[in-house]
């Protein structure tokens, strides 16, 4: 516990020296966050390896019950991505942000505070501590999103985020109030058996789902996420997508761990929401032209995959099927870790692209692979992992969920497992298309504009964190078995013996074997190809055109066009297609966009309508004091009449 508290302090203090240090503030902050990482990871790994005294608690007499902070396996597990990404992001920030803008010290300070809030949040075991850390996290993240507040787009994104996060918090207040009333404790405690099936249990489930769903970006509560992720500085986007969203999942995991007997339909709701988020998330990603918005929609997709796992686990728990429970929960938890690694990696490499070219627009990039080989490699690893392709980490977590769903098929006429299977298969195929599009549009082919042609490789201080994350993705993918004992301990929190049997999954060892064989084969074939003599410096053979140029290339939009058109019933793309007519048509522009359905078609118009409606009431608020006094008088009169009568 001491180590963990020290890590908390180090993170909180990381930005403070920078307030008066002119020169080395950034390095000091990185150093302190590194220290926090080492201390925190030490504490977490001690808990996860199941050493003596698996959980630490900090008690205070006045607040009573279980303690304020408890580092149990769940906390330790969620602390890992927080600490790793916080350090990687800060290091990356040295190259990405420092010296670019005037508000660097403030950004650094808030970044440290955000990390501290996250560290506090994962270990919180008291309602008050949890809510305080939650609110601190929300506000710190708001300030970070607003880092470039001179741009109107950023300000809009920031306000949307603030409104969304507070709406979510409102639900959490209700949920925790109800929880405290039903359990009679202000600490975290298990619900009594039988409560989940009652009205109070249903209300708790709904409130927590709404509250945490907002933070996790579950469709349709996701609408704050794409603008906020696009507007924030890239290392902040990485932290937001990799870690902040997961706090919603952490909340759900905590809640599910308190419920001994979830009704069957809870799992169904989780699966349905997961399928919706997963499929629509990736579908919307396909329609995006903005690299960071595209990645943000993929976060929604991955939250969907995590929910599919959680739903599967919950179904297993309700049905008393340990295999579904174990594999679902373990898959969901592992995907939490995996997603934070590969999405962090993707956001960092997207930031390197933005840093080098000044644009996030896929249609203006291209051909960066030759100028930024390391960044392109990092992005490729991230894409590979997020598509769930072997032998990287994304495959392992999806494999666990698949396995659980396949096993669940054996159980009578359950419809949910097949929903999970189909969603995962479709999500995988669409994600593959989307990342092929993104990677190719940015890094392959010819540069489409000058921005791409004059790009430069990111500095080493930005590449290093990307390398760390990429290696982590590879390590988990190649040797997943090493992770299983720890994962089992975390899953145990979600239900009795949920982690049982994970280590004995024979497939995990075989996956390592196939991964190694794959690598070896690729190496051999590569060696065979490499020394091929080359036949000169030639252009791409484009059916006889002597000078193929970037204007003839397939763009990201044209690549995704078939799928977007196939999915137009869900996406409602807005297409501007001027009619080309006559023998000598004028130059013409084609444009297509996929606006967010919730934000652009539901939330914004309905809020605008509310504002208009409110304007009608303004007649009553003229600003004249005598009129207000008249209101008071009239009210008193009405009250008097009412009381007398």
């Amino acid at each position: 516990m001491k180590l963990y508290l020290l890590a908390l302090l180090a993170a909180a203090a990381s930005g403070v020296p920078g307030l008066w240090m002119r020169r080395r503030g950034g390095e000091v902050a990185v150093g302190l966050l590194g220290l926090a990482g080492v201390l925190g990871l030490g504490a977490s790994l001690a808990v996860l390896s199941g050493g003596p005294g698996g959980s630490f608690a900090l008690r205070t007499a006045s607040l009573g019950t279980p303690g304020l902070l408890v580092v149990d396996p769940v906390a330790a597990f969620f602390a890992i991505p927080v600490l790793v990404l916080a350090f990687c992001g800060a290091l990356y920030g040295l190259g990405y942000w420092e010296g670019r803008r005037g508000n660097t010290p403030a950004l650094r300070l808030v970044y440290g505070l955000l990390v501290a809030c996250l560290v506090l949040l994962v270990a919180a075991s008291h309602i008050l501590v949890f809510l305080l850390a939650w609110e601190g996290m929300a506000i710190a993240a708001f300030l970070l999103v607003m880092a470039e507040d001179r741009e109107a787009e950023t300000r809009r994104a920031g306000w949307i985020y603030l409104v969304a996060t507070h709406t979510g918090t409102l639900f959490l207040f209700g949920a925790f109030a109800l929880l405290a009333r039903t359990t009679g404790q202000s600490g975290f405690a298990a619900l009594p058996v039988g409560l989940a099936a009652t009205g109070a249990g249903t209300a708790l489930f709904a409130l927590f789902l709404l509250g945490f769903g907002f933070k996790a970006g579950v469709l349709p509560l996701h609408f704050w996420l794409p603008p906020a992720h696009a507007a924030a500085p890239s290392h902040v986007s990485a932290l937001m997508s990799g870690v902040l969203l997961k706090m919603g999942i952490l909340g759900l995991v905590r809640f599910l761990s308190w419920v001994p007997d979830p009704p069957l339909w809870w799992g169904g709701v989780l699966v349905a929401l997961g399928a919706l988020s997963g499929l629509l998330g990736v579908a919307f990603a396909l329609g995006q032209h903005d690299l960071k918005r595209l990645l943000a929609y993929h976060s929604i997709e991955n939250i969907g995959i995590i929910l599919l796992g959680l739903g599967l686990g919950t179904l297993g728990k309700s049905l008393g099927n340990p295999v579904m429970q174990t594999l679902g929960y373990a898959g969901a938890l592992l995907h939490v870790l995996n997603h934070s690694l590969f999405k962090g990696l993707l956001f960092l490499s997207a930031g390197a692209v933005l840093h080098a070219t000044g644009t996030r627009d896929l249609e203006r990039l291209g051909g960066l692979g030759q100028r930024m080989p390391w960044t392109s490699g990092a992005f490729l690893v991230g894409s590979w992992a997020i598509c769930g392709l072997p032998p990287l980490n994304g495959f392992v977590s999806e494999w666990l969920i698949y396995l659980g769903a396949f096993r669940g098929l054996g159980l009578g006429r359950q419809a949910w497992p097949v929903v999970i299977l189909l969603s995962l298969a479709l999500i995988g195929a669409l994600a593959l298309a989307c990342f092929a599009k993104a990677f190719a549009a940015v890094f392959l082919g010819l540069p489409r504009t000058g921005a791409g042609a004059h790009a430069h490789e990111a500095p080493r201080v930005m590449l290093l964190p990307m390398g760390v994350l990429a290696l982590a993705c590879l390590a988990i993918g190649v040797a997943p078995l090493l992770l299983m004992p720890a994962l089992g301990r975390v899953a145990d929190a979600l239900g009795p013996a949920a982690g049982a049997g994970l280590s004995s999954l024979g497939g995990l060892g075989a996956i390592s074997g196939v991964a190694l064989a794959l690598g070896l084969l690729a190496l051999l074939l590569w060696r065979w190809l490499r020394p091929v003599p080359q036949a000169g410096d030639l252009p791409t053979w484009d059916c006889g055109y002597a000078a193929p140029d970037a204007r003839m290339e397939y763009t990201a939009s044209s690549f995704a066009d078939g799928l977007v058109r196939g999915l137009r019933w869900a996406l409602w793309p807005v297409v501007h297609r001027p009619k080309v007519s006559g023998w000598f048509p004028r130059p013409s522009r084609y444009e297509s966009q996929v606006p967010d359905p919730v934000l652009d078609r539901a939330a914004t118009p309905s809020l605008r309508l509310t504002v208009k409606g409110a304007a009608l009431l303004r007649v009553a608020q003229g600003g004249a004091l005598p009129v207000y006094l008249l209101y008071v008088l009239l009210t008193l009169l009405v009250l008097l009449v009412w009381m007398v009568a």
Partner: protein
Amino acid sequence: MVRSLLPTILQTLLHGLTVLLLPPLLPGLIAKTKALMAGRQGPPVLQLYYDLAKLARKRAVFSRTTSWVFLAGPVGGVAAGLAASCLVPFGHTPAPVSFEGDVILFAYLFGLARFLTILSALDTGSSFEGMGAAREATFSALAEPALFLGFAALAKATSSLSLGTMLVFPGSLATRFTGPLILILAGWVIVYLAENSRIPVDDPNTHLELTMIHEVMVLDHSGRPFALVLYGASLKLLVLGALILTPALPRAAQAWQNWLVFYLALGGLAVGVGLVESSMARFRMTKVPQFLVAGVLATGFAFLLMLV
């Protein structure tokens, strides 16, 4: 111990040799069938072996637009195909590697090959290859559910998750061919034709037409990389072929009989593909999704039949 191990090693060895040596025969058989059906003599059955040998000695042409990603497609295609070939049983001879859940790894290895092929096509910056890559990504999104629904139905029928056992449909050959199995196989044959870029989805013999998918993606490959592409494509014919053949094959008592049955069936499959290609034209591009949806529906119905 040694005695019981030896046959396994022999089987594995035979499996490996089959995977390495046999695939180029299949396109040859298909081409020969088509030629005979059309009343031509056609190229020799071993033509692809000659082609591969020739390409392996040739210099390669690389466009100046391409990077190392251009080679990742051919390398990844063959490496993933070989890895997947270890997981699938050839007829009723067991696969060298078999574990619970290998079916998912099997499907995703082909996903990996597809991903790298698409990237390698887009690396050239050619609009034709972009077009092919986009189509590949689009159509595979429809083929994937058909494949997985088939797996789900088989998993339900056999309560197993390993290709080695789930493809072995229960019952004797006569009782096996009931509704579900026929539907699964029908759906998978559609996936087979689409994934292997065969008529009616795609035509591997034309190399420059706007209605193509797979061949247009490898337009710029030459020399050794192209040899890998061709070998990878024929490997896919074999490995996916084993997937659809196994549930439909009779089980023999002796290992050698099983092998014999498998080889014969493989030849039959190639001839069958040749017959399909000779008897129908390629669909218009807009019809392809409908064809694939038919595959999804067939496997979906198979799964529903398994539930009742």
